[in-house]
């Protein structure tokens, strides 16, 4: 038999398949399709200090093998999350991880502090890479200095597992990953969306209300794989790979490139059962290739 589990610090994941923030709601949205408790983890929607309405409609544009979104972190804020959503989702038997976003360092810190107290939230994912908000967001993830400021501040107050989610919109993602590691991140996840744009030629207008948005889906997979590979040469902490994973083969590619776990995002929209199918597919691949643990497979690319 194969062992699909992996760990970040001492946090145990029964398998390496997580769902990506902003693409899986809080979990219940998928109850009809999958047993959420079977997942390695769920990263819930980006959560901010205050309630946010997000950007105006339209927020989505389909692109070749992908999509742009400009949701802009619509969420009801951390207090609402704690009061109303937490109780609904804490019974899932998997790692429920909150994606923390903000527009100022102190916002990140405050949200992280509050999450520290929730027993059923064993980890946070710091989103320093959202391209869809005016202040903060991606800006934090595009230079080592600004990344450092958020990460170190949150690290001081957050005691559990801290994952830092990196932006691909940079010249050198490896150096930003290194900064995250140096500042105490327990893992990095990459990639968030690539900044893109879509235009309606007939209407002569941008399709998104915000003009630009974040590109996700299989179109970005080659870039994501390359970045995971580059980051794996630069850091020792575990890497969670994502970007365009549509099936188990795609997931395996990320493991071989150096990821210890993966997230499934946009693919959930096309096949809401995909996350569970990917777990099964990884298991089959490991049997076929004689890998007994995920660890044996990580970075095993013969170059």
């Amino acid at each position, binding site marked *: 038999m194969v062992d699909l589990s992996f760990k970040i610090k001492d946090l145990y994941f029964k398998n390496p398949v997580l769902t990506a923030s902003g693409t899986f709601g809080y979990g219940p949205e998928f109850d009809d399709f999958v047993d959420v408790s079977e997942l390695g983890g769920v990263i819930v929607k980006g959560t901010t200090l205050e309630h946010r309405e*997000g950007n105006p409609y339209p927020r989505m544009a389909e692109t070749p093998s992908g999509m742009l*979104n400009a949701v802009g972190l619509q969420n009801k804020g951390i207090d609402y999350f704690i009061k109303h959503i937490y109780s609904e989702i804490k019974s899932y038997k998997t790692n429920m991880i909150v994606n923390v976003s903000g527009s100022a360092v102190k916002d990140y810190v405050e949200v992280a502090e509050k999450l520290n107290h929730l027993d059923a939230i064993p980890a946070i994912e710091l989103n320093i890479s959202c391209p869809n908000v005016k202040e903060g967001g991606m800006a934090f993830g595009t230079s080592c200095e600004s990344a450092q400021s958020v990460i170190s501040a949150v690290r001081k107050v957050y005691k559990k597992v801290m994952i830092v989610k990196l932006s691909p919109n940079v010249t050198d993602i490896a150096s930003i990953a290194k900064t995250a590691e140096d500042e105490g991140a327990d893992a990095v996840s990459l990639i968030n969306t690539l900044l893109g744009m879509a235009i309606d030629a007939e209407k002569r207008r941008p399709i998104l209300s915000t003009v630009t948005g974040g590109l996700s889906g299989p179109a970005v997979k080659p870039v994501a794989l390359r970045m995971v590979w580059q980051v794996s040469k630069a850091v020792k902490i575990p890497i969670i790979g994502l970007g365009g994973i549509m099936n188990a083969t795609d997931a395996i590619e990320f493991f071989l490139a150096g990821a210890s776990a993966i997230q499934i995002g946009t693919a959930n*929209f096309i096949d809401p059962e995909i996350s569970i199918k990917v777990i099964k597919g990884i298991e089959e691949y490991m049997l076929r290739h004689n890998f007994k643990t995920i660890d044996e497979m990580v970075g095993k690319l013969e170059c």
Partner: protein
Amino acid sequence: MKKSVQYFTINAVERLDAEHILIEAVSPVPLQGILPGQFVNIDVEKSKTTFLRRPISIHDVDEAKNSMKIFVKAVGDGTRAIYEMQKGEKLNTMFPLGNSFSYSNSQKPLLVGGGFGLAPLYYLAKKIAQNGIRPTVIVGARNSKNIFLTEKFQDIADVHVATNDGSLGEKGMVTEHSLFTNLENFDKIFVCGPEPMMKAVGKIAVSKNVECEVSLENTMACGIGSCLCCVADTKDGHVCVCTEGPVFNIKDLKW
């Protein structure tokens, strides 16, 4: 009804013109409990340039045959590929999605449809008819060539037509139809069509104090409330059209 993804088998296609098609497809699972106004989300597997699923209204359900009908207009690559599907082919379908028209409290319903907006209204009319009420339907279009399905409505509804050029029914926009002068004869209006048309109907409904529900067609990614892409601006803020809608009472919308 629990949502799921199923492969329906197409068992009849009726190409109404070069762009419009009526498809009947059989479900491998029972279709009990589908509500009028709900939609399906179709993965168009044979279109290279169609990445996301395409939301399409449920036009009719035959619970005995376990089949559903959809009425599709080819406007782009995704719907074009659906238009070109043949009997026997499989339709990768996620369903049932969305809420429902609230028709049970209406004694004198008026259904207003334009374009493929007519799609959800047939099943609504049928459900209303099953309650022993004969609904009134107005179908609007540019000209007679763009009027479809009226003969199918005739068994269960009183059908009226408005065309911009007067080539069929009354001449003018749907909101200029004589039925609108005595709108108080109806206790609820159900509208589906292009947004400007729905807004125009909504405005008259408000002015005449008649309840009005519209079915929005916001672009969608997931169809199940997880991506927050499809939001409508309501008095409660941004809400998902795919789960809180597609049907909204216009009094809840910031129109």
